[in-house]
């Protein structure tokens, strides 16, 4: 690597910050992909958040394909973040768009699902409701406690992931999870050939491997792109809110609200709080529902 290369990269990085601030013009700018950019000579003036005007080549405004986070890198998490989810049970009518999007993006086979929509009933007199469940990314994760080989881990940003390159398939974590959030590839998972050759990252949970455990990963690959997990963006009813607890804000795509106010005003709770696992997924109780409860055929598990 030559000195000029280094230099131009540094320059670019400086500019990168500027571009990002500027406007909706830039949707998926990736700082890592510098090498592939060929300058066009055409410059635009942009303003950085600090108020400086920077002039940069328009080539840098092009969206760039995503990169893969290696198993080692994926153990650290995104600095300064504490991801959190809030699920509004009053809005869920079991459309299962979340489930389908999750299945599709994680290439879950016919017998695997990271996200379930369960029919719940608090007591026989109460009306049932639909409850999407997934990995709760607990702050006291009983699954991580029991892993003998450090294959599943809790990151600084709150996300619990699995490195299926490390997993020995003892399934102790599945037994330890009181929410039955984890799934196992009992046989060789079937998926398209190009996917099988894709570079594995714990952040995408793809491609899955026979004899290992997998589960909802909170889509950190999407988060790195500045986008929310697939279940959140797929839901047409705004059931899922996702965000950063450190920022005290969650968004369901349509609106961004303060997490503390949302949980305070709408009596947010966590599923089976008495387990002491401190989940990072909160629920808003199914009161003042948007839809009447309707049981339907979608409830069956696909397996």
């Amino acid at each position, binding site marked *: 690597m030559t000195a000029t290369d280094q230099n131009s990269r540094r320059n670019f990085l400086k500019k990168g910050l500027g571009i990002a601030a500027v406007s909706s013009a830039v949707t998926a700018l990736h700082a890592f992909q510098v090498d592939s950019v060929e300058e066009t000579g055409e410059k635009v003036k942009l303003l950085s958040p600090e108020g400086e005007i920077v002039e940069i080549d328009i080539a840098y405004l092009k969206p760039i394909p995503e990169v893969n986070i290696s198993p080692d890198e994926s153990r650290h998490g995104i600095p300064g973040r504490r991801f959190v989810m809030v699920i509004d049970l009053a809005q869920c009518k079991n459309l299962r768009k979340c489930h389908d999007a999750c299945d599709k993006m994680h290439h879950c086979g016919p*017998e*695997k699902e990271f996200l*379930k929509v*369960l*029919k*719940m009933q608090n007591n026989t007199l109460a009306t049932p409701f639909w409850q999407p*469940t997934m990995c709760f990314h607990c702050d006291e994760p*009983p699954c991580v*406690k*029991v*892993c*003998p*080989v*450090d*294959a599943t881990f809790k990151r600084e940003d709150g996300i619990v992931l699995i490195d299926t390159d*490390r*997993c*020995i*398939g*003892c*399934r*102790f974590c*599945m*037994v*330890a999870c*009181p*929410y*039955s959030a*984890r*799934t*196992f*590839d*009992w*046989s*060789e998972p079937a998926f398209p050939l190009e996917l099988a050759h894709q570079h594995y990252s714990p952040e995408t949970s793809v491609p899955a491997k*026979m*004899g*290992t*455990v997998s589960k909802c990963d909170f889509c950190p690959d999407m988060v790195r792109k500045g986008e929310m997990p697939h279940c959140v963006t797929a839901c047409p009813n705004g059931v899922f809110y996702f965000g950063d607890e450190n920022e005290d804000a969650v968004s369901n795509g349509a609106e961004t609200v303060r997490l503390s106010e949302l949980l305070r005003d709408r009596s947010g709770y966590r599923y*089976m709080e008495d*387990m002491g*696992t401190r989940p990072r997924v909160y629920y808003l109780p199914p009161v003042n529902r948007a839809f009447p409860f309707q049981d339907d055929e979608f*409830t*069956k*598990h696909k*397996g």
Partner: protein
Amino acid sequence: MKTKKPVPLPYPTDQIEAISRDLMPKPFGLSGKIWVAVLSVIFLTGLYFYIEQFRFGLGITAMRDYSTWGIYIANFVFFVAISLVGSLVSAILKLSGARLRTPLTRISEMIAVSSIIFAALVIIVDMGRPDRFLNVIFHARIQSPITWDVIVISTYLTISLLLFYLPLIPDLAFMRDRYVGIPAWQKKMYTFLALGWNSHPGQEKILRRAEQILAILIIPVAFGIHTVTSWLFATTLRPGWDSNDFGPYFVSGAFMVGAGGVIAAMYIFRTHYSNWDKYLTDKHFEFMGRLLVLLSLVYLYFNINEYFVPAYKMKGGEAEHLRALFHGRYAPLFWSVQFFGMVLPIIVLMFRRGRKPLPMFIISIFVIVGAWFKRFLIVVPTLSHPYIPMDRLPESWQHYIPTFKEWSITAGTLAGALLIVTLLARFFPAIPIVETIEEAKPDHNFEEIS
């Protein structure tokens, strides 16, 4: 040491010859060959299906995401349980100075060694990625009960092997010197393993001391191995496992099935080899019978604690699990196991006539089979009752019914363990020869515990 330790040889020749003729390991007769052949077929069938499982994954079993542990884990717990017999007989009985233990020690160590080896193998059988077994060492997380289990199983195996081997050294030397008509390799093996034992007083002293130390050392390790195994369940939040006295519950059950295992082996050896009723006498059966009643009563006590107390409360998920055991899907198995595997042995063995060899053999089979299914009842029903509702799952996911291949692999491991015991008894005396000779001396003093 209170008394002098005489050099074991020479003795009255006829007595030595009679004992060594009776106790020297013998080539298989017809029944022995059939026994080995049957066990080998079961073992190899299991191995065949295991190779299939290794290639195509655990999908060949009936385990799925909810019933994620099945009969492999139940079988693992069973093997760990029965291996505790080694420490029971060689350590606890030795240290308590029980006179009748001499012919029982070798048998129990053989059972202990073979079952602990298979416990380790069975846990590999249950792994989704057995090819990554070494991760358990190179990426070991000290916080995981599995890591503790790996540590304590390897420790227990090592100590059990030593406890099997050390008392065997004088016998090996005895066979090296006196066993005629055996193939040269067998002689060489005895010579090699006997470590040049020549009853040197220094050797005797070292050996007795080493045995004494091991007998003490194995007790905490034995409690550890089964307590840690119980923690694989008790450290989770699952109904039926979330219990504080799982450790002692498991340990007491393990001693009980261990005693049952020794009784069964005693009976088979006694009836199979001629004259062995002189060494494994009715007195020995009487003694083991009383011991088994005691151990069964202790286990009964823990069972009452384990089932009655939560049943009195009938709390949430626990209630669902208990109902399935008491009058639901698992009720026939549960009550059969509790009655035939625990209550009936207590009743029968209370009577003097029940403590005769044949009734005891039958009872010990009940105890062993009951113990295996008891482990099934500990492992499986809990996972069939997760906290989240299961009604949307397909039927085959809600109920775990092991596949034929799964049963076959499990049967293969049980046959394999029996095969190891059989082969050990084929080449090493199942009853210590030198010690028996020594004890046959009229002036032998049993109170030699320092």
